[in-house]
């Protein structure tokens, strides 16, 4: 992440001009914090503990294999 001065603060001396030119280089990009959907914090210890009682282990989007084909589900992730 680059912390930049406001353009209005950047002066006109040689160093500042160089900074401004550098900013135009294509390999410099501003951090815009891309947000991909990720899990809420995964706590391994808690998950292992919860796994001890499989019947009560909760999965947010649990599947019902009496109506869904597990193979199709696996294949579905390919799309």
């Amino acid at each position: 992440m680059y912390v930049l001065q406001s353009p209005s603060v950047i002066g006109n001396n040689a160093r500042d001009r160089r900074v401004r030119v550098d900013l135009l280089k294509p390999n410099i990009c501003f951090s815009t914090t891309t947000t991909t959907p990720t899990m809420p914090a995964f706590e391994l210890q808690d998950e292992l503990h919860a796994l001890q009682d499989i019947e009560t282990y909760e999965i947010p989007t649990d599947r019902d294999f009496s109506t869904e084909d597990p193979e199709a589900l696996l294949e579905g992730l390919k799309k």
Partner: protein
Amino acid sequence: MEAVADSSDNIAEPEVFDVYRSLLKHSDMVPGPIMSKLLDSISSGLQAELEATLRDIDTGDQQTYMSHKQPFEMYAFLLHWFVSAVEKVKVSEEGEGQAPAPKARKGKGGKATTSKAAGRAGANKRVDTTWTWREQIAPTLQLISKILNRLQTQRIWTTTAERDTFVKCVLLI
């Protein structure tokens, strides 16, 4: 499991992780060949995470290599669960001389599974005989050994407690 094949970090996507967990939770209804694919996928993901983590540790960028911590733990958790699930089946089979009849279980909303589902699960159990976990034990142990030998766990899990948790999970303790 191409989502994971494309990038092992995709395991951290809720939808992907939940598919793995669902398959494991309801493994009594999953045919053997699909369980085999599932294990392949988990193992490949772990392997890929190991390689990526080792590369990133070499670069010395802590922020980068620490990003592998959660995917690593997720794969380790899935492997732990997988082994627990198949070992239970194995023990039952050895004890009874054949695959166990699918137990009645409650689905969403507490409804008991239908007879159709039970019939299907029974069919799945017949398919199960085409796959045996026993053949996969050695390669799985090799992978675990490789992880513990090559990975500098103290770089990723910085406290003793969390390092112990990870190692125990991987060792299937």
